[in-house]
């Protein structure tokens, strides 16, 4: 009898599957680290609204009904960030709109809001931010 032995058994198949699944899991674990990009957008938008409110830029803009200050601020934001700011009065009427130059809108938005006062009137500033796609 001259049959060669077969090394490939059910045991080795199980071992192979186990090893393969271990490496697939390891690879998956390493690859899927949580993205923190959204957190950065939230932080940056929050900073932007706080700075604009505390520097008086929001109230000056509403008072003069002019978006040039907001526009300058948005245009000086990092290149990869796109954003727009809308200001509403207490009745919800949109008073001002400013958007960063050269940005088109994207679906993955971060929205931040901040209430501010100008001459005893309450206003709402809403900022939408997203990452530039191209």
């Amino acid at each position, binding site marked *: 009898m001259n049959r060669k032995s077969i090394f490939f058994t059910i045991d080795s198949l199980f071992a192979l599957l186990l090893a393969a699944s271990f490496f697939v899991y*390891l690879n998956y674990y390493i690859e899927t680290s949580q993205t923190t990009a959204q957190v950065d957008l939230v932080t940056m938008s929050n900073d932007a609204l706080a*700075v604009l409110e505390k520097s008086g830029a929001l109230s000056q803009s509403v008072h003069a009904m002019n978006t040039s200050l907001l526009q300058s601020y948005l245009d000086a934001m990092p290149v990869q960030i796109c954003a727009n700011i809308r200001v509403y009065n207490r009745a919800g009427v949109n008073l001002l709109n400013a958007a960063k130059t050269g940005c088109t809108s994207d679906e993955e938005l971060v929205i931040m809001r901040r209430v501010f006062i100008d001459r005893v009137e309450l206003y709402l500033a809403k900022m939408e931010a997203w990452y530039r796609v191209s």
Partner: protein
Amino acid sequence: MKKAQMFSLDLIFASIIFIGIITILINSWTTASNRAYYDEQYKRLELSARSLANLLLQTEGNPSNWTSASVSSIGLAQSTSLNRLNTTFKSRPAGLNKRGAWYLDSTKVNALQAMDYILSKTLMGLSADEHYYLIISQWNNSAYVPYYVLGMPPYANATNVVGLERFALLNNNWARFEFRVWAE
């Protein structure tokens, strides 16, 4: 009667394949564990950078009128006390005043700049092989111009560098806060 021959062609092939598999496994394992280590380090640095940026921009430090001699916690926000008294344990209406979070105190920034680097690093909770680098730029009506540069710039061969960009007010002007935490 012939003696059995242990050293066959099959065995050579099997050994080569086995050694090949073991080599690939060891290489994969080393690569995977290195990646895991650097990923973990990056996450740790990212967390440190975020916490430190918040600490520096949004707190006054302790005491709130700290100097390099009295500091126990670093914060660069202006004290809510107009006459620079320690307000650490006093309540404050922080929402409406023009001081506090986001208002950087140039005296504190200068104090941090003049402080011994190792001491400042220790106060920020960074370990021996971790460093910070901070550039504070001020708006000049058309662009942000660097005003303060603190800490140590990353080495060319730094293992991980985490960068953050935040915004604040300096001397009642818009300011950009570029903060990097990096590991040797």
